[in-house]
């Protein structure tokens, strides 16, 4: 296999990894603060993609400028979901939370299908024909923008969590809810905020996905969400560095490994494509990590 092809696939993997990381960090945040696993997180990505689609279609402004709007919109929707769905059942048992968020998956998917049909939607990035040449390889500009965007999001998120009063209050709530209340922190507000932020990050993932040329439909969220769950478990529940490392590893592995296997079996004269195995790879890695290190790579209890 030629090196430039490999590098190109590597960037593909980085790009896919970015989407997983954005989803996984939001999930981690919600779980950390509220101790709720939001199985419907992929549907927030889907709603974010539709939000970007409609804002773009109705306004026609540069799609990259729309990301912020889609994030704000989903942040508001996140507040409503937390207040109307999760808050009333908090503390009534894990099973209720699980079924509620599973129920939300179908609710949002069907709502989207009803409102916007099940047809695929896409938008045209103004840079879709532009590519950047580095040496002998050509990379789509959109992918590079997305990788840069994700890095910026992560830095901003990290600064927010570490340096601001609000971020510190959210971390405190996730480490010890009762002690946080004793500090004078309005912990229910932190729930709301974590859900809003998590939803906004999912919207960022969804709109970046759409802008980079992927299609939106009501069911687009399921596979990325499942992979984001794998990323969280591989990286260690609650760990942000873990999510970043695992997200990138997964993104790269699922794009590079099928090619490796293909050229490997090619040595034996077998000609077979393994790209259909892409979605399975996440789970191979997941199982291997769990066997070797059940708490995930960076895993420990807490935050």
């Amino acid at each position, binding site marked *: 296999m030629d090196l430039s092809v490999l590098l190109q696939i590597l960037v593909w993997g980085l790009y896919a990894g970015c989407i997983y990381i954005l989803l996984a960090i939001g999930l981690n945040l919600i779980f950390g603060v509220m101790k709720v696993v939001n199985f419907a997180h992929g549907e927030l990505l889907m709603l974010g993609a539709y939000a970007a689609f409609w804002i773009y279609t109705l306004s026609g402004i540069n799609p990259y400028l729309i990301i912020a709007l889609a994030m704000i919109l989903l942040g508001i929707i996140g507040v409503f979901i937390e207040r109307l769905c999760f808050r009333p059942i908090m503390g009534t048992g894990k099973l209720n939370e699980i079924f509620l968020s599973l129920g939300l998956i179908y609710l949002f998917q069907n709502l989207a299908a009803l409102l916007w049909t099940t047809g695929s939607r896409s938008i045209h990035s103004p840079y879709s024909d532009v590519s950047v040449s580095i040496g002998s390889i050509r990379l789509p500009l959109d992918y590079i923008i997305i990788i840069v965007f994700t890095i910026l999001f992560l830095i901003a998120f990290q600064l927010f969590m570490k340096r601001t*009063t609000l971020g510190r*209050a959210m971390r405190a709530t996730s*480490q010890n809810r009762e*002690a946080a209340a*004793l*500090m*004078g922190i309005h912990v229910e507000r932190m729930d709301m905020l974590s859900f809003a932020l998590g939803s906004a990050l999912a919207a960022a993932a969804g709109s970046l996905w759409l802008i980079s040329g992927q299609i939106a439909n009501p069911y687009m969220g399921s596979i990325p969400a499942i992979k984001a769950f794998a990323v969280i478990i591989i990286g260690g529940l609650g760990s942000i560095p873990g999510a970043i490392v695992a997200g990138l590893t997964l993104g790269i592995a699922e794009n590079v490994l099928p090619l490796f296997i293909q050229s490997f079996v090619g040595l034996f004269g077998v000609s077979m494509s393994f790209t259909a195995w892409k979605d399975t790879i996440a789970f191979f890695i997941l199982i291997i990590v769990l066997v070797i290190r059940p708490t995930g790579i960076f895993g420990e209890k807490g935050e």
Partner: protein
Amino acid sequence: MIMLEIKGLNVAYDKVQVLWDVSFNINEGEIVTLLGSNGAGKSTTVKTIQGLLKSRSGSIRFMDKSIGGLPAYKVVAAGISLVPEGREIFPKMSVLENLILGAYVPRARAKDLRDESLDWVFKLFPKLEERKKQLAGTMSGGEQQMLAIARALMSKPKLLMLDEPSLGLAPVLVLQVFDIIKKLNEEGVTILLVEQNVHHALGLSDRAYVLEKGRTILEGKGFELLSDKYVKEAYLGM
């Protein structure tokens, strides 16, 4: 002047009632101790005052305002701070970050006020200043207790409640904790102390209440209770 007035407090966990018609009060500037055997309802009492638990009935008044039923964050903002049983520090944050969180209430949050409070608690607990970069979870039990007290002070409370601050500490540290409590009181902080360490606690306090099976059964001056027949039998093993 009465600072905190509790009247007819009834508190239950689900269906099990644990506080029955509890009444007591604390005057401004006092140290009041709440005594009682295990399970008597001491922690339940301070948690209810702080707003972590809701009472079924009864009134809680603080500085002439009703605070009964307010959520914890509002009670903290009103000027009451609790050092909970078992410390409950934030283990994955540095000592300094724990302290900064202590000054979260609007009343104490401004940077200059916060720096002032930091100076104050570092003077009381010099060790915390040496360890301010250390992760709180890696400190010893005694150090964590000091941190928990210092953190509660960062909100500049008018009333500080301490739930068994000497629990699990070596005798030297116990003395140190009681010294600090005394010093704080001299600086004007009113104190509600929950203790099993009857001798030290009563020696230090102005007044004390004894809680038994969720009811206040005795009240008296600290030194008077020390020689009370019931207290002697029940707590001092005499």
